C-alpha cells in the first residue's frame, strides 16, 4: 500500500516497505558511462578479492560511451581505453549508439517496476516507464556491479498533478520548467517525485521522459510515472521480459503541487539555476551566439520533428551557430529517413554524432568567454558548456529552433 516508489520496493522485497526505511535491494540493471566508469573500475577492483572480480551478471551490467564520443582529447581516449580493457576482461559489450538514458530503454532494459541504478544523475529518467531509476556515484555503482545490490533509504514522495492540455507552441519541456520553478532546485531533495494527471496520461513516452529526466533538477532521487498502455505499446518488440504494471494504492504524499497546464506559455530557465524560469517574452532581448538541440532531455524524434518543421526552408541566423545532436543512432536514422537531417543541414546547422555533445562542455560546441547559448539541456550551471563567464539558457526544442532563425531568444508561436 503506498506511493509508486513504495509499491516498487514492496514488490521487489516481497513485503510492505514504507518511506523512511533503509533497505538493501537486488537491482535489475546497472549502468555507467565513459566519464564515470573509470572511477567505478578502480573501486570495483578494490573489491575483487572479496567478490571474485567479475560483474554480478553480464546481461544486467551496461557500459555505455556517450559523454565524449568519439574521444576529443588524448586523456579522454585514454579513459576510453581503460574502460575497453575492463569490458574485455569482463566479457561486456560497450554500447556506443547514443546517450545512455536513451539507449537503456531502446535496448529494452527499462521496464515497469524495475530498479535501475546508473552512474549518472539523469538515471531518474527511467521513471518515465514506471521503473525506479536513480543516479549514484561511481563507488555505489562499483558495489552494484560487484554484488548486484544497492542500499536505499526509501524516499518520501512529492506528487505533481498536472491537469489540462498544452496550448499550441507549448511543450512538455515548458511544463517541466514550470514544475522546477514551482518545486525549486532542492524542493525534492532526498524525495521521489510522482507525476500524475490528465496531461501526463496523454503524454507520449518521449514527453514523459523529458519530465522524469528533470526530476534531479529539483534534487529528486527519482521521478516516476505509473506505467500504462502507452508504456506497454512502446516496449512491445523491445523486450520479452515480463513486468508488473504497478499502481499506487492510497498513497501518502508528503506534498502535492497542482498545475493547470492549459495556462502555460513557452518558458525559459535563465542562468545559473534551473528554477530561474520566466516566460519567453521576458528574455527576447537576449542575443545568442549558439543554440543547441539535443541531450537526454530533448534529443528524440518528436523534438527533431518540431525543430525541422520550424527550420524547413529557412536559414539559421548568420551570427548564431546551431548544433543538433540526435539522442541515439536509432533516432538519427529515423530522422534521416524522414528528411529532418537534410532540413537541418540545409538550414546551416551542424549535426553531430549521437551522444551528450556540448552539454558537458568538452567538445562539439564549447562556449567562449561571455558567449550566450540557448539549449534544450536540463542544466544551465556556470561553466557547464565551456568558459565560466558564458551563459546558458534552457528552453523547448521549438523555442531553440525559432531562436536559431532570429539570433535572439524567440517565442516559437510566431513560427508555427
Amino acid at each position, binding site marked *: 500500500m503506498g506511493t509508486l516508489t513504495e509499491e516498487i520496493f514492496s514488490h521487489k522485497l516481497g513485503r510492505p516497505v514504507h518511506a523512511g526505511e533503509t533497505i538493501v535491494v537486488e537491482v535489475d540493471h546497472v549502468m555507467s558511462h565513459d566519464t564515470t566508469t573509470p572511477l567505478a573500475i578502480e573501486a570495483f577492483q578494490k573489491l575483487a578479492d572479496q567478490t571474485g572480480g567479475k560483474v554480478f551478471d553480464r546481461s544486467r551490467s551496461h557500459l555505455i560511451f556517450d559523454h565524449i564520443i568519439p574521444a576529443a582529447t588524448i586523456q579522454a581516449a585514454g579513459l576510453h581505453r581503460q574502460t575497453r580493457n575492463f569490458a574485455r576482461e569482463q566479457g561486456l559489450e560497450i554500447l556506443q549508439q547514443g546517450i545512455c538514458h536513451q539507449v537503456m530503454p531502446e535496448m529494452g532494459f527499462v521496464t515497469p517496476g524495475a530498479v535501475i541504478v546508473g552512474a549518472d544523475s539523469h538515471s531518474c529518467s527511467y521513471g518515465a516507464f514506471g521503473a525506479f531509476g536513480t543516479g549514484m*556515484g561511481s563507488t555505489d555503482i562499483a558495489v552494484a556491479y560487484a554484488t548486484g545490490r544497492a542500499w536505499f533509504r526509501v524516499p518520501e514522495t512529492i506528487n505533481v498533478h498536472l491537469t489540462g492540455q498544452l496550448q499550441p507552441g507549448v511543450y512538455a519541456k515548458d511544463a517541466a520548467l514550470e514544475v522546477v520553478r514551482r518545486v525549486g532546485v532542492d524542493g525534492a531533495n532526498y524525495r521521489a517525485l510522482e507525476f500524475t494527471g490528465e496531461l501526463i496520461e496523454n503524454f507520449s513516452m518521449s514527453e514523459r521522459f523529458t519530465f522524469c529526466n528533470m526530476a534531479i533538477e529539483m534534487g529528486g532521487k527519482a521521478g516516476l510515472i505509473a506505467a500504462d498502455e502507452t508504456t506497454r505499446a512502446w516496449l512491445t518488440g523491445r523486450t520479452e521480459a515480463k513486468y508488473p504494471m504497478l499502481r499506487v494504492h492510497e498513497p501518502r504524499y508528503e506534498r502535492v503541487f497542482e498545475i493547470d497546464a492549459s495556462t502555460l506559455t513557452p518558458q525559459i530557465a535563465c542562468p545559473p539555476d534551473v528554477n530561474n524560469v520566466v516566460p519567453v517574452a521576458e528574455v527576447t532581448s537576449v542575443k545568442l551566439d549558439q543554440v543547441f538541440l539535443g541531450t537526454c532531455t530533448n534529443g528524440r524524434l518528436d523534438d527533431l520533428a518540431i525543430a525541422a518543421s520550424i527550420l524547413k526552408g529557412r536559414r539559421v541566423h548568420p551570427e548564431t551557430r546551431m548544433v543538433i545532436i540526435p539522442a541515439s543512432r536509432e533516432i538519427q536514422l529515423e530522422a534521416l529517413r524522414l528528411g529532418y537531417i537534410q532540413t537541418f543541414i540545409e538550414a546551416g546547422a551542424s549535426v553531430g554524432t549521437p551522444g551528450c555533445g556540448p552539454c558537458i562542455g568538452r567538445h562539439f560546441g564549447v562556449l567562449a568567454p561571455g558567449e550566450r547559448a540557448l539549449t534544450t539541456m536540463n542544466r544551465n550551471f*556556470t561553466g557547464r558548456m565551456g568558459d565560466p563567464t558564458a551563459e546558458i539558457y534552457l528552453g523547448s526544442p521549438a523555442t531553440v529552433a525559432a531562436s536559431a532563425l532570429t539570433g535572439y531568444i524567440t517565442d516559437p508561436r510566431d513560427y508555427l
Partner: protein
Amino acid sequence: MSRIWKLGDNINTDIIIPGRYNVTTDRAQLAKHCLCEVLPEFAPQVQPGDVMMAGHNFGCGSSREHAPASILGCGVKVIIARSFARIFYRNAVNIGLPALVCEEAVLASNDGDNIEVNLERGEITNLSTGQTFQSEPLDPFVARIVQAGGILEHIRLEGTLR
C-alpha cells in the same frame, strides 16, 4: 585547529569541479581544480585538516564522484552544510569524506574562522567564537559506512552489502 572555507547555497558539482577536468581519476590532479571557478585561491591555499562549510543543497547536479574526490584530494577533513544534495552525500560518505549537517554551526560561522570537529561525537567547536554545536545524527546505515571509513571498507568488514 583548522580553517573554515565557507561557501553559499546550491554549490553544484560543476562549481566544485568543472566537467572539463574530469579526465582523470587521480585525486591529487582533481584537487588542483577544486572550486577553481568561484574560489581560485582555495586549491593553492587549503591545508590538510581544513573544514569546508556550505549552505543548502551542497553538491547538487551531476553524479560525478570527481566532486567529493577533489575535495578529499585537497585534504579537507569534513564538510559541514545546512543540507546536502543526495547523490553528493552518498558519494562523500562512500569514499570516506565525512559530511555533517548542522544548520546552526553554518549560520554562526564565518569564512576564515578556526574550528575543531569531533567526528565521533558530531561535536563542532568554532574556536574563533567559542561556540559549540551538535550536528544532526546520522542514519544508522550511513553511520556504519562512516565508521568503516567508506562503503568498500564496510563491505570488506561485512563480507557483502547488507
